[in-house]
């Protein structure tokens, strides 16, 4: 792959904004969807910006993800594709989630161009909001070192940080001091770079090497993290211990980009049960945790969305009780997605695993029938035992 060198004198963000301004000027796109600091200076929000002067305060590399970008794109395009061409500046996981949502028909990718960048991770939201003065330098530090215990736990073990599931990608790894790479990752990206007169002659070998190196390190870290997480969630006892402080607020579900249902099944009539049901269950087990069906909510949510989980970690940020939701879901997601060799959001054309099937697959799952299992005598004996 070949790209362009993007020099930035002091401030990478300012150079990216200058690039975006030029893009708007030359009508490569008509509006930019990009995070922007909010008036109280302690959080960020997505703004769809047409007016170049308003781009000044925007932040292409924000230290937090308050609203998952895919949700923002879905809000914009759920009811139909954008009539104007929009460039969306988002983290790789947000772009992947948007691709997943487009497969689920909750977002339209028409007229949408993605600009991604090598992502150092983001910080847990509530800690940042409480003290942005401490958060900002911590984020800058993570951007320098690509390794920080202050980022979201799932970010620390993410190996999809450089994956360009996008049209344009800003490579930060392997670039010389004061430079970044700008790669076209699709035809549309190339078209934009051509229109802007940006040469695509710089080699990406150095970048690719660094990405590969960091990817391996992250994969290694994830293996270790999953091993230790496994001990905290394996078996009913450990799993329920991890979820013992869950208050059933469903924040995790609501901020998840993949959970798009307006009314979640777990909030529907199916769970508005008569008092006899609760009392019967309480009598059977001696007592019944209320609100009921806490574990069922989490396992059920997994069964609904795990194949599209991009391990972004927004759920864990939103949990008021500090439960490692994202880590657990990411662990389960990796195993479930591996079954189908599926990586959510890696390709717009790749269909959702639940929407397709092969005639011959998963044969190991179907329990083989042993004709010799039950001789008549044995079977009837076991039947009469149970009387």
């Amino acid at each position, binding site marked *: 792959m070949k790209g362009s060198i993007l020099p930035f004198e002091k401030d990478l963000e300012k150079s990216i904004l200058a690039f975006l301004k030029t893009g708007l000027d030359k009508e490569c796109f008509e509006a930019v969807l990009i995070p922007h600091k909010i008036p109280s200076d302690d959080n960020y929000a997505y703004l769809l910006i047409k007016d170049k002067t308003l781009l000044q305060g925007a932040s292409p590399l924000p230290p937090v993800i308050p609203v998952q970008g895919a949700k923002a794109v879905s809000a914009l395009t759920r009811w139909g594709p954008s009539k104007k061409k929009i460039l969306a500046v988002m983290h790789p996981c947000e772009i992947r989630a948007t691709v997943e949502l487009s497969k689920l028909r909750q977002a339209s990718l028409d007229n949408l161009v993605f600009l991604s960048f090598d992502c150092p991770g983001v910080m847990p939201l509530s800690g940042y909001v409480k003290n942005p003065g401490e958060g900002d330098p911590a984020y800058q530090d993570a951007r320098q070192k690509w390794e920080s215990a202050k980022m979201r736990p799932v970010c620390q073990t993410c190996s999809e940080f450089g994956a360009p599931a996008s049209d344009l990608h800003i490579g930060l790894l392997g670039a010389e001091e004061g430079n970044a790479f700008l790669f076209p990752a699709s035809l549309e990206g190339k078209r934009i770079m051509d229109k802007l007169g940006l040469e695509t002659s710089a080699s990406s070998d150095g970048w690719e090497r660094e990405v590969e190196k960091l990817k391996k390190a992250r994969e290694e870290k994830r293996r270790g993290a999953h091993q230790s997480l496994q001990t905290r969630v*394996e078996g009913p006892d450990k*799993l329920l211990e991890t979820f013992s402080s869950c208050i059933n607020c469903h924040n995790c579900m609501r901020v998840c980009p993949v959970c798009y249902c307006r009314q979640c099944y777990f909030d529907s009539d199916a769970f508005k049960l008569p008092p006899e049901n609760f009392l019967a269950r309480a009598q059977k*087990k001696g007592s019944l945790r209320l609100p009921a069906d806490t*574990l069922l909510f989490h396992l059920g949510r997994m069964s609904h969305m795990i194949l599209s989980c991009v391990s972004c970690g927004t759920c864990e940020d939103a949990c008021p009780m500090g439960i490692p939701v994202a880590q657990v879901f990411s662990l389960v997601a990796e195993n*479930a997605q591996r*079954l189908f060799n599926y990586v959510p959001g890696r390709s717009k054309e790749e269909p959702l695993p639940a929407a397709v*099937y092969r*005639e011959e697959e998963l044969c190991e799952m*179907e329990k083989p029938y042993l004709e010799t299992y039950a001789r008549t005598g044995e079977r009837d004996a076991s039947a009469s035992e*149970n009387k």
Partner: protein
Amino acid sequence: MSRDFTPKIIYFMCGWCGTGGSETASAYHLCYPENVLPFRVNCTGSLSSVHVLRAFIEGADGVIISGCHPGDCHYEDGNFRARRRVATVKSILDSLGLGEERIWFRYIAHGEGKRYVDTAAEFNDYIKKLGPNPLKERNDT
């Protein structure tokens, strides 16, 4: 333990081949353990994963899901979808150590009465060996 323990087993079967299998079995006067509780769904493809999970959490020791053989589904591809869905649920339970082996997925044709009762009996014995589902006694689910 396996002597005293009568597992509670839910047998999800599709309304076409699954229950057909049970009807064939009854035509041949074949028996299966009475603690295996049949639960008809229209098609295994219409069986929501949440019902399987709910069965586990609320007291089932094991769950069998049976539908038409590949290619025979009345709704064309319901059984294919079910296979993927059950594989996903089993993967989830496996990742969390919640006993994915307590879910069996087996195809039963309309005329396979013996296969139907053998499945029920085999699973019953299997679950008896495994013991009661540790989730069902918990009051913190």
